[in-house]
């Protein structure tokens, strides 16, 4: 959530209620622009979201910035208690998440790129699982022999992992500290 301004203007309760209802009603993240259109002109959506975050701090459901918008999500620490109570879809397989990670950090990239990095063939069922869940989508073709399809991640990917944008992913260089300048050591 955006930080409060130095000069806090009290957010009208009516605006807070409206934002609360709007974010609650939607399963998908609500873009801030959409929220702003529902609010009176003299109330900034940003301020309302900040006030909302404050009000829900420590509660069972909290507003979070995700996939370019804002949405209510259950608090992560309730995971184990809720898992027993609500229906939980199947988790992505290890290979699927590894493939997703490679696509996320190397996008847009081809299936051959993924296979090259993993050093193993990528089964169609893995790609199909990611496609079915809407985690990846074609992003054009590479201008190379065979014009292979390029893949990239979707807003659903951001939503799945609770990311506001791709900028929330750690930088590739930071994933493996110390390996930045690899020197061959034959002996």
């Amino acid at each position, binding site marked *: 959530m955006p930080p409060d301004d130095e000069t806090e203007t009290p957010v009208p309760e009516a605006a807070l209620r409206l934002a609360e209802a709007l974010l*609650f009603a939607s399963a998908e993240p609500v873009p801030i622009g959409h929220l702003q259109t529902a609010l009176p002109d003299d109330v900034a959506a940003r301020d309302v979201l900040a006030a909302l975050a404050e009000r829900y701090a420590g509660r069972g459901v909290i507003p979070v910035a995700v996939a370019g918008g804002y949405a209510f999500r259950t608090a992560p620490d309730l995971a184990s208690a809720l898992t027993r109570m609500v229906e939980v879809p199947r988790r992505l397989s290890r290979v699927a998440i590894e493939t997703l990670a490679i696509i996320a950090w190397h996008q847009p990239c081809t299936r051959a790129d993924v296979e090259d*990095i993993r050093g*193993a063939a990528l089964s169609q069922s893995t790609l199909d699982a990611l496609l079915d869940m809407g985690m990846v989508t074609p992003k054009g073709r590479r201008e190379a022999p065979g014009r292979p399809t390029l893949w990239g991640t979707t807003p659903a990917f951001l939503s799945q*992992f609770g990311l506001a944008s791709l900028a929330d*992913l*750690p930088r590739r260089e930071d994933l*493996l500290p*110390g390996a930045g300048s690899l020197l061959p*050591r034959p002996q």
Partner: protein
Amino acid sequence: MTADPTMTVRIDGYEGPLDLLLDLARAQKVDLAKLSIVALVDQYLLVVADAQALRLELAADWLVMAAWLAWLKSRLLVPDPDADEAALSPEALAGQLAERLAELERMRVATGWLNRQPQLGQEVWARGAPESFTVEYRTGLSADLPALLAAYGGVLRRLAAQRPYRPKPRRLWTVQDAVQRLGVLLGTMPSWAMLSRFLPEGLSDPVERRAATASTLIASLELARDGRLDLRQDRAFGPVMLKLLDNEAAHAA
């Protein structure tokens, strides 16, 4: 050479040569940047040899990697004095291998990072019963004139396909008709006149017009044979000219 003889690694459970190599590299417990490629090669070859001793069916890529690693090791230990300048040095190739392993390791770390994120539907949940405040009101049609024309065209084509073909009846101008018309009209035209002047009137259909032209030409040829008219065509494909021959003139000729 430096392979730990106590280390036993089984080939099954690895997704490919790179997966195994990364695991072996990790086992060196050094920064990947300080990796000993030669030690890594030895360990890999040992594992592959073990697998072959166990008569495991090895996929080709395991053996290709083994052969390439053995070659790389020999080049690293005994540099080729006649090495091709353009070719990559063994050190550069070893560096590329180390970089590939580092990238795989980075992606493994990335996978771990993603796995630690609270996943939607696994650790955190969205509203289970979202409420929609979008009211769709249906006004207007998305149909336009092309769609209407296409629909009607479709109806007409279906109709055409269903009904037996009935050709349009043709009004064909017979030679007899033409002889009769020539006889009437020639009397009114004392001088040369074009054949087209003798066609029946109101012929818009091109087929009917061509048929009438042919009939009139045949009729004029017959009348010319009988010595009742004179025919002339000044050039190929030029207009055919007709003129009545009176009996006296015919005698004179």
